[in-house]
């Protein structure tokens, strides 16, 4: 197993958290894993992104430049990364925020109005986890339970009430595609 993932969007959309959940799931499955945020002042207001690598081998470069999984949650990130996704990569797009489709034919792209779905379901700010659900379904990378466990671990112990809403969001995304 080997995945090189980029997750990108605005600061405040839970980009880094989403990456942590995926990385956490990989750790539960005893994979080698690395998570690397873009950091710095551009965090604020501006865009945020992170790289997650999952592998059975030792991980070399933790900075992903050719993702086989790409999750984008705003237009600038879509424009920036869509070209770099590798052939046959899985690309998830929050279509409620990005009004554009990839012009490439060599990728598996999914358009999920995640933020909108989140708002509609009273799960505001959980568009990220909706996309995670879709990802889980689309890639089958790990079992649902594994992701649930990862969510439980990633949510700070002081805010465990969030676990439930996160799982709800996950389900919505999971069920969004067939």
């Amino acid at each position: 197993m080997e995945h090189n993932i980029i997750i990108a969007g605005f600061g405040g959309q839970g980009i880094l958290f989403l990456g942590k959940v995926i990385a956490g799931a990989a750790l539960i499955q005893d994979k080698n894993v690395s998570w690397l945020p873009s950091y710095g002042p551009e965090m604020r207001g501006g865009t945020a992104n992170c790289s997650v690598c999952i592998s059975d081998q030792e991980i070399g470069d933790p900075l992903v430049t050719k993702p086989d999984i790409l999750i984008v949650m705003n237009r600038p990130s879509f424009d920036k990364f869509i070209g770099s996704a590798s052939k046959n990569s899985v690309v998830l797009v929050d279509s409620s925020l990005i009004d554009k489709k990839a012009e490439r034919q060599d990728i598996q792209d999914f358009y999920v109005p995640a933020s909108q779905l989140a708002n509609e379901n009273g799960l505001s700010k959980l568009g990220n986890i909706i996309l995670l659900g879709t990802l889980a379904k689309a890639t089958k990378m790990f079992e649902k339970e594994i992701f649930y466990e990862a969510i439980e671990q990633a949510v700070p112990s002081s805010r465990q009430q969030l676990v439930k809403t996160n799982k709800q969001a996950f389900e919505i995304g999971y069920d969004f595609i067939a």
Partner: protein
Amino acid sequence: MSKKFLMKGNEVIAEAAIRSGCTMFFGYPITPQTEVAAYMSKRLPEIGGVYLQAESEVSAINMVLGAASAGRRVMTSSSSPGISLKSEGISYIAASDLPCVIINVQRAGPGLGGIQPSQADYFQATKGLGHGDFHLMVFAPSSVQEIADLIKTAFDLSDKYRVPSLILADGIMGQMMEPVSFSEEESTDQPDKGWATSGHDNKRAPNIVNSLYLTPDELEKTVIERYQRYDVIAQNEVLFEKYLTEDADIIVVAYGASSRISKSVINTAREKGIKVGILRPITLWPFPTQAIKELCKTAKSFLCVEMSMGQMVEDVRLAVEGVRPVSFYGRTGGNTPRPEDILHKIEQLNEEEK
């Protein structure tokens, strides 16, 4: 095997220090290592330790000097510009034979530069972190797990030799999360610090921590004595990792983030039938000079990969002594070496050798 956590390198620096018996931390915020202090500010008070945010890096390193003089395990952390500011204090600490651990999570320079990762403080760390003849022990972890392990080594050896330790990390090491597990052994067996200035209680002569010797002969004596300790360290404490070097024609030399990127390229190159291996210095001072000399017997050429304009490459050249060609590939300014570029370099070298 003990439990694995997914943790940021910076947090592991802090947690590993605490597990190594470090109970005092003095710092000043700077990207990309702020999580070290954030972690310490939360955890140290919980265990009765001391966290103090100083008014500057200069002040922080001098608080370290004070705490180390009193015999405590103490750490400070910063990034490139902040480390420059500490250089007078570091020279004093080295000259006063005080143990401590200093963290440099390097960012791009010179000047304010940028906040992305870099390895361009190698020269400063290994040769010039302050005025005068002295060395630090310099450790370069290349994974979050290794951070955990080296922090303990850094504290233990620093106490043992009374030579300050520097962890030379970079923005990637600091910001990255990887699984990490901590060794279960308690590490509280610190050597006796009879020299510490903790008050003589009217029971012994005053202890003095000092680096001033107005008589050249006296000062020279202390320096030479210290260099004898350096010699012992160079004999016994060199750390490095070799990977696929035995039959390699080309040896990549790289440390820290650069080494892990290079290592993955080695595998690709091997698949292409190129005999390449990697030597990864873990201690940058003492440098694995001998290991490189050994490899000169079997390897045809060396390639040094760094996140700088070429700094460690000088130490490689000093080790190789012209016996084999040494080439260099580096990126700077916060850029990291690209695997495809490294591969390309290796292929080129391979061609040339034919």
